[in-house]
């Protein structure tokens, strides 16, 4: 067990190393970089002094180095202008856009991202699992068709527009302030019950919009998995034992059908981040999505790279957790059934 985890951690480190290189290359792919663009911009506005300052940062962050050196400096295995100071040393870099260290920029938003994603995850599961079970048990019934249809509508709707429309009508009908995760008045206020309520209200639209597309996919997969399991002999055995139908369903085929989802925990995350970027952008949510998008567009490289790495690390950890969870849930894997 420990040996297994150690082996996994080792491959994880390797994977992350490759991902880090990939991330860096992707970010460096578009021509130009933040500061050079910034300098040109400032100069054209007559901001001579600010331009000088930006030129300063280029040296400071080694943006004049060749790309491969910049990469090595970034991950912290090559001395940069300030000596060894990279990811490995816990230095996440500097955001040019925000003119603050990356950790300060991202810090607030990370847990809000997590919050939104958890809300979405809960929504997706709470909604789709019962529907999927219903659809599978009542295969080809009207209810099944209806559930599938509604799910697909969610999948088919371009969610950024749906977000915009819902945004408008929740404001109009329920007076929920437009955008953000709570009313602006709570922005600098300490946590209070009202702030939590405001947060809850503001979570409705994003959860619904981000969750809808995931729900359809989840229903579809869960239904297919369950249908597979429903025809298995062990389910007949359970029924033949006299186990009541609902209990039999939940204890045996459902449990089994869950396994692929557990196996997929790690992979959900990048999808959620992707899905939430657009919606967060429309709804102006303080999550990493829009920051990432902004950073990628303005080539704020350390910020973008860090967020991508962060997601990748979460994914890889998620994969490990899902493997361990799967082993815990499925004795065949734990005990090595052939």
């Amino acid at each position, binding site marked *: *067990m420990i*040996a*297994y985890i150690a*082996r996994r951690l080792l491959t994880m480190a390797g994977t992350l190393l490759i991902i880090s290189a990939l991330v860096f290359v992707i970010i460096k792919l578009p021509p130009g970089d933040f500061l050079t663009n910034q300098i040109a911009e400032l100069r054209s506005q007559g901001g001579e002094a600010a331009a000088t300052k930006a030129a300063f940062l280029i040296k400071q962050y080694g943006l004049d180095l060749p790309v491969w050196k910049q990469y090595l400096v970034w991950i912290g295995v090559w001395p940069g202008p300030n000596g060894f100071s990279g990811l490995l040393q816990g230095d996440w870099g500097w955001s040019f856009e925000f003119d603050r260290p990356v950790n300060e920029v991202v810090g607030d938003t990370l847990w809000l991202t997590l919050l939104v994603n958890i809300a979405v995850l809960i929504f997706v599961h709470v909604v789709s699992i019962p529907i999927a079970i219903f659809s599978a048990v009542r295969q080809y019934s009207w209810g099944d068709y209806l559930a599938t249809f509604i799910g697909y509508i969610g999948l088919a709707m371009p969610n950024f527009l749906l977000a915009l429309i819902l945004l408008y009508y929740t404001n109009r009908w329920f007076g929920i302030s437009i955008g953000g995760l709570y009313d602006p008045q709570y922005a600098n206020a300490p946590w209070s019950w009202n702030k939590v309520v405001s947060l809850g209200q503001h979570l409705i639209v994003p959860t619904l919009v981000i969750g809808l597309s995931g729900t359809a996919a989840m229903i579809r997969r869960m239904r297919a998995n369950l249908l597979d399991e429903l025809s*298995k*002999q*062990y389910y*007949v*055995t*359970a*029924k*033949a*034992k*006299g*186990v*009541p*139908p609902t209990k039999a369903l939940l*204890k*045996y085929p459902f*449990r*089994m059908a869950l396994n692929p989802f557990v196996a997929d925990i790690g992979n959900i995350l990048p999808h959620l981040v992707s899905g939430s970027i657009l919606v967060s952008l429309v709804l102006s949510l303080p999550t990493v999505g829009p920051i990432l998008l902004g950073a990628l567009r303005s080539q704020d490289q350390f910020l973008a790279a860090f967020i991508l790495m962060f997601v990748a690390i979460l994914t890889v950890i998620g994969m490990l957790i899902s493997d361990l969870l799967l*082993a815990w*849930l*499925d*004795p*065949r*894997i*734990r*005990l*090595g*059934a*052939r």
Partner: protein
Amino acid sequence: MGVSGPALLAVSDLAVNFASHGTTTRALDGVSFTIPRGRTVALVGESGSGKSVTAQAILRILPKAATIAGGSIVFQETQDGEAVDITRLDPSGRQMLGLRGGSIAMIFQEPMSSLSPLHTVGDQVTEAYLLHKGGSRAEARRAAEAVFARVGLPDPARVFVTYPFELSGGMRQRAMIAMALICQPALLIADEPTTALDVTTQAQILELIKDLQAETGMSVLLITHDLGVVANMADEVVVMYRGRIVESGEREAIFRDPQHAYLKALMRAVPRFDMEPGERLTPLREIATADLIAAAPITVGPTPKGPVLDVTGISKVFTLRAGWFSGNLRQVRAVSDVNLTLMPGTTLGLVGESGCGKTTVSKMIMRALKPDEGRIRFDDGTGLRDVQSLEGEDLLRYRRAVQFIFQDPFSSLNPRMTVYQLLTEPLRIHEQISEAEKFAKAKMLIEMVGLDKRHLRRYPHSFSGGQRQRLGIARALALSPKVLLCDEPVSALDVSVQAQILNLLKDLQAALGLSYLFVSHNLAVVDYIADTIAVMCRGHIVEQAPKALLFRNPVHPYTQALLAAVPDPDLDHPLDFDTLRTGRFSDPTAWPHPFGLGNDRPSQMEEIEPDHWVRTTTSERAAA
């Protein structure tokens, strides 16, 4: 009806319909029979005859597409208790739930897939107890452990916390039985309870069921296609054919005086040990191709003087990863030091239980696997040549000369090809002949296996299992091979079809001078078709002899056990449960001296009489 009091279960005029794609087919049609208290009723029939549907109807666990269209199933648990008509109950109502698993329990064919792999054996077994008897978990556990002990599971406490896949097949089936028995049901439905098991295990399970029945007085509805099992187990027999009962009655009556043409045919189609030399099985429908085969213009090249196939000392070790979390690699010796010789025009039967290495041997001969040691030589009339060293043209020639017949007739034919394409595929690979010649050949081949030439344009999906297996044989013959490797070619087929195929193979051999390596777990089948038989266990050949010698004088304890375990459809040859009870016959280290293997003790084949070889341990011999 029994003379004194009502039967435990009375099925009368039961009809079940299956709806599929808008059409309704009748799966059961007017089925009536009774299960008297304390007795075993066997439901016999080939696949698709409606045996399992009957059982499912009794438990009301029919698939969604099925509906009970008429008739009644009256169940009366105690003599003077209330009788209920099961067909009128709500399938998921309280009363039915109470019957299911409580009063009527069921065990299934596949002990692996019938148990959930995610739950411990104990969990699954106590579930029924908790549902029907109530009580605490501790009580349930005690009950479970007691019943484990009763079904012969060693160390009940440990079994309680193991998962099904950690047990061997026999153990799993015992666990299944324990699960069925924990509530002391009045009726046990056993749906092909031993079909997936090795013969030796089968015998043990059968005995167990018998013992338990005697102990508890429960009734058993035994569903099987194996007349041998029926002869050994049943008190009464119900024979089904296509959803209808064609004959039923007491065991004696059925076996000694079969009346219905179908039952008679079935009896004649089962290979038995006591068949006369040269006696032919009579399938339900004989394939009338003998003339065609005889007339077949198949050219056979020069016949080798010695063996056509010579296998010397081959061994194969597989490396397996033990589990997910352990980095440990396990080495499994699948085949060790196997020697075989196949003489031209004869059949060598390779017998053994599942996992004994027989398939690995056949794969190595086909060059689908590479032996770690030893060599395989082949003679196409030009002298023996090492198969492993063949390259290019020679290899292609070898591939032509040695053909393979698979066990699963469904997976062995490419569903996207027509029969014509299938049969001519080998020709396309190996021969440059015109389309007309190909057609002529395909026509000849398909007629040779008793199918119509019009079938050439069809796709495999339109054929039944037996027909597909015939197509497989036809394809194997396309290149006029010298050797056919038959890997369990009939084990997936019903007896009547099995007889067809076996006869066909025999006829082909007689006409074409083919040599067969016939791999099977069924001794009776091997007995019918083979000339020489090699018995394999745990990768070793333990005994090898011409079949007459082997059956007359089995020397090796494993061979003896194997022979004793085959249920004969003959009331005069009941199973000898005593020989099988020890259960140590498949463990080479437990074999009595001088046969015991293990601890890397060198062993060798010893000729105890002409052509009769038995594996013995060298050191013991030398010492003696």
